[in-house]
């Protein structure tokens, strides 16, 4: 069996950054709708990083391009094929960046008009679309059976929310720290990581019982060359340690210790994207057709 080699670390970084930026906006805008005054420091932090993370991630997509990079006028053709998930993604990203630039600028006090509730709801919708799209992009490819399962989009969405909260908490701690509570984020974060474990388990179980290419992919993740990244990078660093610290109010940290723990979630989020991208193996083109 052959691993795909066309999508590499640049794509994984994009999937990670776009998910994290979208997650930050989703959590920020939800807090905004719920109680703006109470969570204003969190909303400001989310506004500061939401759009820039997604835009920065999109830059990696651009740098991964071939001819499109040095002939940028060709990029207008990205809207040409309504059947292509990449076309959908281009539209989603463009709308997300426009919408969250406005929303972020309003929250940070740069512009006066915020667009009211509509722009909050729109930001959440586009955030969900951006985070989900990062998985749908590779999930629709029937050529790579390991990616071709619907749990991937939910896993990426939950992971996006989790990393988005982490990134926002770090920025809040560094630039917008005030006396307000972050208890609600600790709890949300805790449950999102619990759900992530179940989704990962489902991914592993389904793949181990899948077609040979899926088994090949998941064996590489669980036992093979990607196993260190999986067990240590994703599970231990990205989920289990942060889970312990966010599971109890007593253990919940602040200051630089909190930043370290939240950074671990981000490392886990990136590792998750890169193992999924690298473990993708093509369907075996000659399987079952060689006869004696």
């Amino acid at each position: 069996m052959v691993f795909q080699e066309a999508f590499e670390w640049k794509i994984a970084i994009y999937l990670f950054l776009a998910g994290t930026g979208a997650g930050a906006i989703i959590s920020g805008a939800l807090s905004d709708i719920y109680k703006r005054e109470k969570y204003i420091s969190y909303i400001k932090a989310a506004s500061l990083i939401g759009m820039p993370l997604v835009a920065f991630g999109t830059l990696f997509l651009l740098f991964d391009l071939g001819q499109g990079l040095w002939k940028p006028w060709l990029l207008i053709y990205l809207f040409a094929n309504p059947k292509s998930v990449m076309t959908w993604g281009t539209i989603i990203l463009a709308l997300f960046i426009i919408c969250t630039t406005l929303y972020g600028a309003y929250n940070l006090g740069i512009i006066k008009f915020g667009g009211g509730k509509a722009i909050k709801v729109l930001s959440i919708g586009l955030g969900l679309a951006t985070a989900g799209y990062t998985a749908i992009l590779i999930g629709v490819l029937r050529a790579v059976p390991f990616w071709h399962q619907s749990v991937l989009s939910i896993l990426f969405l939950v992971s996006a929310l989790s990393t988005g909260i982490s990134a926002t908490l770090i920025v809040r701690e560094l630039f917008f720290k005030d006396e307000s509570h972050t208890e609600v984020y600790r709890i949300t974060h805790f449950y999102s990581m619990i759900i992530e474990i179940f989704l990962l388990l489902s991914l592993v179980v389904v793949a181990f019982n899948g077609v040979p290419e899926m088994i090949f992919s998941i064996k590489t993740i669980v036992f093979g060359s990607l196993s260190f990244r999986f067990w240590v990078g994703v599970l231990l660093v990205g989920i289990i340690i942060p889970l312990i610290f966010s599971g109890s109010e007593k253990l919940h940290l602040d200051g630089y210790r909190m930043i370290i723990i939240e950074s671990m979630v981000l490392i886990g989020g990136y590792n998750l994207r890169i193992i999924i991208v690298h473990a993708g193996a093509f369907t075996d083109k000659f399987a079952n057709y060689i006869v004696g």
Partner: protein
Amino acid sequence: MAKPKKFVMAYIVNRCIDCKACMIACKSRWDVPADHFRTHIDAGNCPTMPGKTRTHYLPSQCNHCDDPPCVTVCPTKASHKRDDGLVYIDRTICIGCKYCIVSCPYDERFYNEEAGVAEKCTFCFPKIYEGYQPACVETCLGHARFFGDINDENSEVSKVINEAVKNKQKVWKLRTDLGTEPNIYYIQY
């Protein structure tokens, strides 16, 4: 009214001796990048009959599918299905996103670093309209490869496929289970 042209290829796999002349002929005609080929010969062992294990050589290249995943995913429509059955990449608008490369179940596309575009077998378009056969077909020593219009009953490829079907030889295409409707016929006596 005559049916439109539909170009297909057929391999009689017993005749393939893994000489790789097709790979080289293709490379020299189309200036394919050094570390890539547009057609491949894969070797497969047949383990189903103990004591009689045999190695088979199976050529492959772009299947010019009727429902090509690469065309569906291409955001710029650079990859498109032509009326004559060819799946063709318009190099002037390909942006090199590599999405088509990961979408191909046959792993028959690759990325041309120098031009920054995706590349694959074109059945030697436009040479086939100038009276030439595809380079791999022209050069094949064992005469394992046949090319032509399957809607023309008198074309060589139609005759070879019909003959094989009539003689109850094994005729198959790769991974039809994926619904791509490929257009390369494998024949084995």
